[in-house]
């Protein structure tokens, strides 16, 4: 079969159906997602996602690597929450080899995770504006995101695929300037977050485009396996940081943001308010980083006993699950990643059918899909 030939599709039933392809190269899909859309006039009748354009079989490659190596691949899944992906893998291996993580490493992990969440939501906010038709937010959000990425670069050496969490703690100690730079950054971010609200939130056109669009009820969101801001906007409490705390999240004070409308605007609001919560978590911890080791001592070659572990972590897009099975050798027997975007995507059809094709773009923007995380 020719690689470029599209696979058989169930979509076209008669010749009268008008089918439009969005993607795989299209600005509003933020990556190589291919949607086949059946239209009647401007109304969406059916949506069918075609996946696999960036499938790298990370689960198969994980079986070839050892217990330290496979987490590096996960930075390439949801590259905007690479830190949380690494964290999930590190926790899974720590559970398997039964290692206590030092307190200092836990606090550093939370700080990095919340900064990643901020950077990710900022990028989403800019891209969301762009999708809806406002160009300015994109530049503003990239300006702010840049300042967070520079802080990552100081400590981790990289800006996007951090690979900073390793089994037992974090790879390196914090850069001496880390606390100072974060303290300087927080007031600026707070000021800018208000600017975000001024630009988009109250805008009449923006509200018209998002309010009442792409509604999904709480029960449906659960059935479709939605998690993260998408499910919380429908009134489902699903924040893993609250439900199954990890790495010391139980000692941090923050609110789980829940909206009930279930439309695009509710999803927008959840993410906007989550940024404030992330800032508050960073504020609580930045002056209270405990002294001590940043990495627990582990053996060179990790060989967990036979068994299986499931670790759930809240990334910027929802719940990431790592299902790790060990057969007692130095390589994982099976690694399954339950990626948040994969499940969130399945709700797309439910949200989009019956609406206009322009609304589909707004829905895609608020689902905040990262395609490499869907294909893996």
């Amino acid at each position, binding site marked *: 079969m020719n690689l470029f030939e599209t696979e058989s599709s169930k979509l076209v039933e008669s010749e009268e159906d008008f089918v439009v392809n969005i993607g795989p190269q299209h600005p509003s899909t933020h990556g190589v997602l291919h949607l086949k859309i059946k239209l009647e006039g401007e109304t969406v009748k059916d949506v069918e996602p075609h996946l696999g354009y960036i499938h790298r079989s990370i689960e198969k490659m994980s079986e070839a690597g050892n217990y330290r190596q496979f987490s590096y691949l996960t930075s390439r899944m949801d590259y905007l929450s690479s830190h949380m992906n690494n964290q999930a893998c590190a926790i899974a291996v720590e559970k398997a080899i039964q290692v206590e993580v030092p307190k200092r490493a836990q606090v550093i992990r939370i700080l990095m995770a919340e900064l990643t969440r901020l950077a990710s939501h900022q990028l989403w906010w800019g891209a969301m504006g762009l999708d809806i038709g406002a160009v300015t937010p994109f530049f503003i959000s990239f300006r702010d995101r840049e300042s967070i990425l520079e802080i990552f670069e100081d400590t981790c050496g990289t800006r996007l695929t951090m690979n900073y969490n390793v089994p037992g703690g974090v790879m390196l100690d914090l850069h001496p300037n880390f606390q100072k730079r974060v303290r300087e950054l927080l007031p600026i971010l707070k000021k800018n977050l208000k600017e975000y609200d001024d630009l988009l939130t109250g805008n009449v056109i923006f509200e018209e485009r998002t309010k009442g669009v792409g509604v999904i009820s709480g029960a449906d969101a659960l059935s479709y396996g939605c998690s993260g801001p998408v499910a919380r906007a429908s009134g489902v409490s*699903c924040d893993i940081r609250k439900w199954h705390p990890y790495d010391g999240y139980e000692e941090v004070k923050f609110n789980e943001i829940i909206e009930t409308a279930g439309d695009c605007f509710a999803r927008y609001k959840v993410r906007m308010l989550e940024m404030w919560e992330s800032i508050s978590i960073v504020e609580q911890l930045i002056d209270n980083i405990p002294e001590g080791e940043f990495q627990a001592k582990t053996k060179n070659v990790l060989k967990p006993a036979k068994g299986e572990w499931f670790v759930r972590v809240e990334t910027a897009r929802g719940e990431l699950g790592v299902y790790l099975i060990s057969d007692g050798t130095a390589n994982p027997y099976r690694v399954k990643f339950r990626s948040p975007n994969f499940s969130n*995507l399945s709700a797309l059809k439910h949200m989009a059918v019956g609406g206009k094709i322009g609304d589909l773009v707004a829905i895609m923007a608020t689902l905040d899909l990262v395609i490499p995380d869907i294909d893996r």
Partner: protein
Amino acid sequence: MSNEELKAFVSKIIPEAVFEEGGQYLNVIVDAVLVRKLLEELRHESTTGFDFLFCLSGVDWKTHFFVVYHLESKHNKHIIVIKAKVNREEPVCPTVSDIWRTAELHEREVFDLFGVKFTDHPDLRRLFLDDTWGFPLRKDYVDDTTIVSL
């Protein structure tokens, strides 16, 4: 419900179910032929009420496959793991995509990578790969291009 109560509930529906304990969650191993009946009960009975299928994965154990369902109840706050034992020669498993809608894509993924056929699935096609590929996550899969060597 505690794990003991869940065990009693499961054994009432499927007396031959095997339990694995000592792990993180309560694991139940049942034959694929019986799994749908159990999952339906677990979803619809109000005392169990597992409304969130947070992971559906396939595992190849060389003699058989497991289709693993990770279930959580948001209301009753308990978690259970159901493992459906699937014959390797004739890999067939009933679909649960009408019980949890998220299973539709997840089952397509398991079909794509393991070759497990889900009966009554509304749209069972390859998800990531095209029809000429084998099933890469099977342990006996031979990679022609040897990009991945195990």
